[in-house]
């Protein structure tokens, strides 16, 4: 049976699109038929992160409004055969999405794919609520930082009240993906620890993605980080997170980024 997964956070810039691409690619590499759907109508970026920006012809809005067939809008990934992308529209705004239209597209995707990964826009408005609307499970992307944790808490509340599953009295599986984590700074007491965030948000941990330059390098060239440098810290963490989504039980390990003494002393400071 197919699974609809929403990648959401409330706050912008925490790594929803990076995580959607990385998890989608990892699930596809595990042999699943996967589509990643960009719900950020007007500010699409998943196409860019996946390196498919020059191949977009039709988009989600065209399909929702019946101007294009689903098969015409889907873009097959060139690196992983079982991975597809449904891009968002760049010229329209989020009002172009209707609840009925989105439901119809999701139902159609369920027939073709094992996993439907919905990349939510930031915020709690129409785009975000429609992205989570038909989800069976959610990945809540959170940075170890006060505003991100607060927004994630708000999103968890919406997942438990505004989704189709919640309204039908069913539960929606929620997983925490802690991104941009710096174990060294957390150990120094400068950054919220994994345990702090877990205790506050009270949802199970899917993975810890270390703060790493590999993420930017991968996005520079338009390749999901799991495919770009599979041995890097973030790629390994995303691959393990994907295996957990598939039901495997793997202990979450603490990513320790190896840094030279010099960069530890004189490295950039993050305000």
């Amino acid at each position, binding site marked *: 049976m197919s699974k609809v997964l929403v990648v959401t956070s409330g706050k912008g810039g925490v790594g929803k699109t990076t995580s959607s691409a990385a998890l989608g690619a990892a699930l596809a590499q595990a042999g699943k038929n996967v589509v990643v759907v960009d719900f950020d109508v007007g500010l699409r970026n998943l196409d860019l992160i996946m390196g498919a920006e020059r191949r977009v012809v039709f988009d989600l809005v065209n399909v929702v409004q019946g101007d294009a067939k689903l098969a015409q809008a889907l873009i097959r990934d060139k690196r992983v055969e079982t991975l597809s992308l449904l891009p968002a529209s760049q010229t329209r705004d989020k009002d172009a999405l209707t609840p009925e239209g989105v439901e119809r597209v999701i139902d159609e995707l369920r027939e073709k794919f094992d996993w439907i990964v919905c990349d939510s826009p930031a915020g709690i408005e129409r785009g975000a609520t429609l992205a989570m609307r038909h989800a069976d499970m959610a990945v809540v992307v959170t940075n170890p930082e006060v505003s991100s944790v*607060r927004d994630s808490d708000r999103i968890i509340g919406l997942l438990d009240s505004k989704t189709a599953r919640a309204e039908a009295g069913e539960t929606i599986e929620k997983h925490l993906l802690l991104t941009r984590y710096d174990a060294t700074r957390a150990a120094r007491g400068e950054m919220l620890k994994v345990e702090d965030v877990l205790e*506050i948000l009270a949802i199970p941990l899917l993975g810890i993605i270390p703060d790493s330059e590999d993420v930017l390098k991968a996005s520079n060239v338009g390749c999901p980080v799991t495919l770009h440098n599979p041995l890097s810290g973030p790629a390994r963490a995303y691959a393990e997170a994907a295996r957990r989504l598939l039901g495997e039980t793997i202990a979450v390990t603490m990513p320790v980024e190896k840094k030279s003494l010099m960069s530890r002393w004189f490295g950039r400071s993050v305000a």
Partner: protein
Amino acid sequence: MSIFGFFTRTRTAPVARERLQLLLAHERALSGKSDLAAILQEEILAVIAKHIAIDREKVKVKLDRDGTISTLEIDIEMPEAVALKN
């Protein structure tokens, strides 16, 4: 981080954790309901306005939260006795 900072570390994460725990306890209690302070302010002002003409511009509302208690302070400037209705 400068070399100087390396020797004078301040552990700010525990502060973040405590602030979040306090804030979220309140926000979760309010979720789904509209802003209690706003409702109280409206209703209290309506009651007072029945008897006294009040200038909305001169109403000061202060909400403060500390641990387990919240305080709502509504400061209404009463016009000179002339404004008494009825």
